[in-house]
């Protein structure tokens, strides 16, 4: 089977042998999982042996595009990077913006698979069908920003750079991969997998294109959709202020976490809200093919970053008891340069702040100590001093020092910045997410808070709700469409796939793809020994009522959480232990 839109080609790079080869894309997988997220997970399931060491030579890195990547379809320029996670031991797929995905596609590949390990630190140059293995002695140890700058000066701006910082080199389970300086494949230690392969960077340039059956018809319809659906006011808010606008909505909605999730809402939120931050905007940027342009370059004092996104604002701001916008920008800048995930690194530091405040263990840092928070990032990335105790994340640190009740994580991945006691479905979205606590799998506040369509403080109906949200995002991200095209529907997705691939896709098939993607992620984890016992929520949520905001007084009773899990497993067709039956696995 062939389809247009795809390049029908995988580049497989053997880092140990210094060799590469190409092979046809598995089109059976493509037909069932479309691309990007889903395709990457299906390949991982196929190629990674159960129990493989995430930082060992047998783990692989999968850089995966989709059929829409490289076409003029709006918001389709992202790239999936996947591997087994050293943070969780689960599967892990990340989505990174910028231009690298499009350049991989124009170089002629749907997917690049990195196997083995370079003998010594190096980087890989991919230019169409040429692959070069380069020495990285002069790059190793440098921050991700400097490394990208050096490589861009050397090769030119028509190459995309994907690089790691010191955190990735030091195999931090919260290390990310950077591209275009401020875009990240952020979570689950994906940068440590790259570091474990001695790979400082991948740079790529492509001079080809993407074939579609009828370029004139495709272009007309794609432009029409851009004008009529993408560029409408329900989506264009992201151009004005990006995700900084979420701060106010989360505060008013009662889901903005405060001081390591000990409470919600911050009466001083106006000191660092979107209006304050945007006063310091110096420029705008979007990913390749983007019609929206969510990126904001800010400079406050000497601190510069693209963003900060809501997650970073929250974890470096109210959740750390800090109200200084310059600190928030600096935190973002330093973490990105070190190659640290702001969510996981930030959550680990704020947990350490609470540990110190409560006298359980003195990590030498308390809520509100902004300078120490910045210093801690470097110590964690380099595993030095107190940073070494925190470098492996909040799960392992709490197992060693205590404080597990308020260690906000699932499966070893730290909590994103949405307080579940104000949005009960989020507790389960985090719990059943296939890579540990992730807000991008099922975004429960969308229904429970921001739309107020489903009551937030009840277990009723939450299994189906979390499934519906998860199914939709699973297929959306398998098309590699950015989350910010918020008005896209299954009808539009199917139409775009039909225009690009030349095969007719029906809207109802989109739902089937989404369910399949959720199942293959779970099947991978099941093979690794994960089950209901691992779908957890921190004890704090069951034990400590919120004190402030519209959700004041709320906890999530254990029986309600268990009820939600039962509901979700039933919707998924899994058994009561959260396991897929064999006959379901066989359909994947």
């Amino acid at each position, binding site marked *: 089977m062939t389809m247009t839109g795809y390049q029908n080609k995988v580049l497989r790079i053997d880092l140990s042998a210094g060799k590469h080869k190409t092979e046809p894309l598995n089109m059976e997988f493509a037909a069932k999982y479309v691309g990007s997220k889903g395709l990457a997970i299906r390949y991982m399931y196929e190629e990674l042996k159960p129990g493989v060491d995430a930082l060992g030579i047998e783990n692989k890195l999968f850089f995966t595009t989709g059929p829409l990547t490289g076409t003029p379809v709006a918001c389709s320029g992202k790239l999936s990077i996947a591997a087994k996670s050293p943070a969780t031991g689960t599967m892990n797929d990340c989505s990174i913006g910028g231009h690298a995905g499009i350049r991989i596609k124009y170089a002629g590949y749907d997917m690049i698979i990195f196997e083995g390990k370079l003998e010594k630190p190096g980087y890989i140059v991919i230019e169409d069908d040429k692959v070069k293995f380069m020495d990285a002695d002069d790059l190793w140890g440098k921050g991700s920003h400097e490394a990208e700058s050096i490589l861009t000066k050397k090769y030119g701006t028509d190459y995309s750079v994907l690089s790691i910082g010191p955190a990735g080199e030091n195999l931090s389970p919260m290390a990310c991969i950077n591209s275009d300086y401020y875009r990240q494949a952020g979570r689950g230690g994906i940068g440590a997998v790259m570091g474990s392969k001695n790979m400082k960077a991948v740079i790529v340039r492509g001079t080809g294109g993407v074939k579609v059956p009828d370029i004139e018809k495709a272009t007309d319809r794609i432009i029409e959709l851009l004008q009529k659906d993408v560029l409408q006011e329900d989506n264009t808010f992201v151009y004005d202020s990006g995700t900084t606008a979420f701060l106010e*909505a989360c505060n008013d909605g009662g889901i903005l976490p405060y001081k390591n999730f000990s409470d919600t809402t911050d009466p001083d939120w106006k000191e660092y809200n979107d209006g304050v931050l945007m006063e310091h905007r110096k420029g705008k940027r979007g990913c390749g093919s983007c019609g929206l342009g969510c990126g904001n370059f800010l400079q406050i004092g000497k601190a510069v970053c693209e963003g900060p996104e809501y997650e970073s604002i929250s974890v470096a701001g109210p959740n750390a008891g800090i109200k200084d916008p310059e600190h928030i920008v600096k935190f973002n800048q330093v973490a990105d340069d070190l190659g640290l995930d702001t969510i996981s690194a930030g959550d680990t530091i704020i947990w350490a702040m609470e540990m110190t405040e409560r006298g359980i263990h003195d990590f030498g840092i308390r809520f509100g100590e902004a300078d120490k928070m910045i210093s801690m990032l470097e110590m964690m990335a380099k595993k030095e001093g107190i940073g070494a105790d925190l470098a492996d994340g909040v799960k392992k640190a709490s197992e060693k020092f205590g404080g597990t009740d308020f260690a906000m994580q699932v499966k070893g991945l730290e909590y994103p910045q949405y307080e579940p006691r104000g949005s009960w479905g989020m507790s389960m979205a985090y719990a059943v997410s296939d890579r540990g606590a992730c807000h991008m799998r099922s*975004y429960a506040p*969308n229904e429970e*808070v*921001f739309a*107020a369509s489903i009551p937030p403080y009840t277990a009723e109906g939450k299994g189906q709700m979390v499934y519906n949200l998860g199914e939709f995002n699973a297929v959306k991200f398998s098309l590699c469409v950015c989350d*910010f095209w*918020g*008005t896209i529907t299954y009808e539009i997705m199917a139409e775009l796939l039909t225009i690009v691939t030349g095969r007719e896709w029906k809207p109802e098939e989109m739902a089937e793809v989404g369910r399949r993607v959720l199942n293959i992620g779970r099947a991978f984890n099941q093979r690794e020994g994960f089950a209901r016992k691992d779908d957890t929520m921190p004890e704090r949520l069951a034990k400590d009522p919120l004190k402030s905001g519209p959700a004041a007084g709320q906890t999530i009773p254990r029986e309600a959480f268990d009820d939600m899990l039962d509901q979700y497993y039933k919707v998924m067709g899994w058994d009561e232990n959260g396991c897929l039956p064999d006959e379901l696995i066989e359909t994947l």
Partner: protein
Amino acid sequence: MEITITLRGALKKYLDGDNERKVIVPNGCTCDEALKVIGLDHKKVARFGFVAVNGMKVMINDRLKEGDELKAYPRISGG
């Protein structure tokens, strides 16, 4: 009674692009009724989000009092 209505995102068009406006509304009216004073019928806005009073999310049928700040959000997505 006088209240302040604040609109976010795409809803600002109901205040001609302004963020907020002081508005005279019937004493003890609901959030829903107050928004209709400026021509915003939430049932007719496909992607209407939620309302907050004085920085706290409330139900659309909750009643207002003199001096309240009523804020209305469109539905947002992403994260």
